[in-house]
């Protein structure tokens, strides 16, 4: 049986994603996410003993680039889509301390 996605869990996920959710949205997402998890329940019914866990969705391996610099964007190009800039910097609301 999958975990249920109750309103509290949806609010928590919203908080982690930095999005504000109305009560109506919480109720809606709780229902929608719940039905997705129900589908996973269905998949869980399959017998997977003897099947190797998949660590990556593709069979492609070892795609590398050489360590040779290419041209970067100009600072103006890089900052062009930023809502605000402070000289050569991206300007963002004040953050305090290390939030990691």
């Amino acid at each position, binding site marked *: 049986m999958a975990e249920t996605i109750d309103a509290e869990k949806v609010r928590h996920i919203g908080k982690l994603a930095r999005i504000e959710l109305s009560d109506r949205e919480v109720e809606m997402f709780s229902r929608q996410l719940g039905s997705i998890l129900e589908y996973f329940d269905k998949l869980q019914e399959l017998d997977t003993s003897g099947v190797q866990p998949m660590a990556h969705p593709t069979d492609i391996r*070892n795609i590398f680039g050489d*360590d040779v610099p290419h041209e*970067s*964007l100009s*600072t103006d190009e*890089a*900052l062009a889509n930023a809502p605000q800039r402070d000289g*050569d910097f991206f300007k963002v609301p004040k953050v305090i301390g290390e939030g990691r």
Partner: protein
Amino acid sequence: MIDTKDSVLPVIGLEIHVELATETKMFCRCRNRFGDQPNTNVCPLCIGMPGSLPVMNRKAVEYAMKVGLALNCTVAEFTKWDRKSYYYPDLPKNYQISQYDLPLCEHGFLDIPLKDGSTKKIRVLRAHLEEDAGKNVHDNPSHTAVDLNRAGVPLLEIVSEPDMHSVEEVMGYARSMHRLVRWLGVSEANMQMGHMRFEPNINLHISSSSRTCKTPIVEVKNLNSFRALERTVAYEIERQYSQWRADPDGYSIDKLGKQNRGYDDDLGRTVFQREKEEAHDYRYFPEPDLAAVTVSQEWRDGISSQIGELPLARRARYMKDYALSFKEADALTLDCPTGEMLDAAVAAGAKARRCANLLLGRGSAIANERRCAIAEIGVTAGQLAELAKMLDDGQINATAAAKVFDELTDSDDSPRAIAEAHCLLAVTDTGQIVAWVDEAVAANPRAVQDVKAGGKKQARAFGFLTGQVMQKSRGAAKPEEVQRLLRQKLGD
């Protein structure tokens, strides 16, 4: 202070982040370079534009493997990357590409030197490859400014087992790791540039008369100097002990689990840190945009063959083969090229002792002034060997050799040519020295009298006369020879 009735064992593990010295970033080919103008080494990928796709830097993987192999780790045959999600302005994608369950390197160890000359094995749990974040600048009180030049720079996270039990062991491990990554050439490990950051986790296992207790494990993030690391560990050991003394029942790992504290550089100690409850909910999941990596035996052996003699082995060899003290051997193995220079000079026929004295005397002093390695001051192994041989043969004395050594840093000339040009070759012409002795004796009757009279003033007067002759030779006469001839002259 710790009460002697309690047996207190600090248990300390250390995470070390090392920025790798690749030319370019980990997933794009923007330059990996410190100190450039803000937001000049950036592209759609490393500023997190939708639709951009990462391409793994082969060199970064190879550098990480090199460290792993030098740390005696198992290099995974199959490894992949994962997304670690969190929101912070210096992380434009809102996730960091890191490695979660299948790290590149696992289960190794690093031998660290202890004060008594022995070594101790510190186990390495894992070393994985991830990307660095950008830089938040907090100078302005009203907003934060973000520079993304560092975003996406390859970072190796090396996690130790909690095998360290004292400040000394932690510092030994941190410094050995610092020396190792520089030695391998995978990182400049410049502390001022933030190339190396430490995260210790510390708790105490305390046995008092009746029971054993463990204090909560305290993790301190983002320490970017050896001093901060040393202070943090020393302070936490004391702090946790007094906190446990004050509340032996409450202050325990069972009740409080793991805690984070911050480091205050001005106070030189750790401080309480308020935390958001969701701070550690990273929701790791496999990075679908990067191909997984398989490491063949051939590839691994190729990297392994690039690792030569490591610092600890070289230091031991210098003590054994060159009869150097621990301190001398240690100073000559701070970096790799200095030892290579010494070995090359010895291979060219010079005596190791003479070479070591030259390198650790003027060599070390000049390197200090210039803030570089001894091997980088501009003296070649060939020049070093020749100068050492001249010293050995008595063709030059130590004072003159030091002068020649200084000249060598800016010159391609041979030590002999420099010594000749500056009249620094030893005077071996006895007749010339005798003449200087005669002059000195004639000019200083008072000192001569003092020597002949014997008693308290004798030694000083004799030293004075020796000095006078040395001065006449401009340091080029052998002092022993001068003294022998002086004694002969004043003898009877």
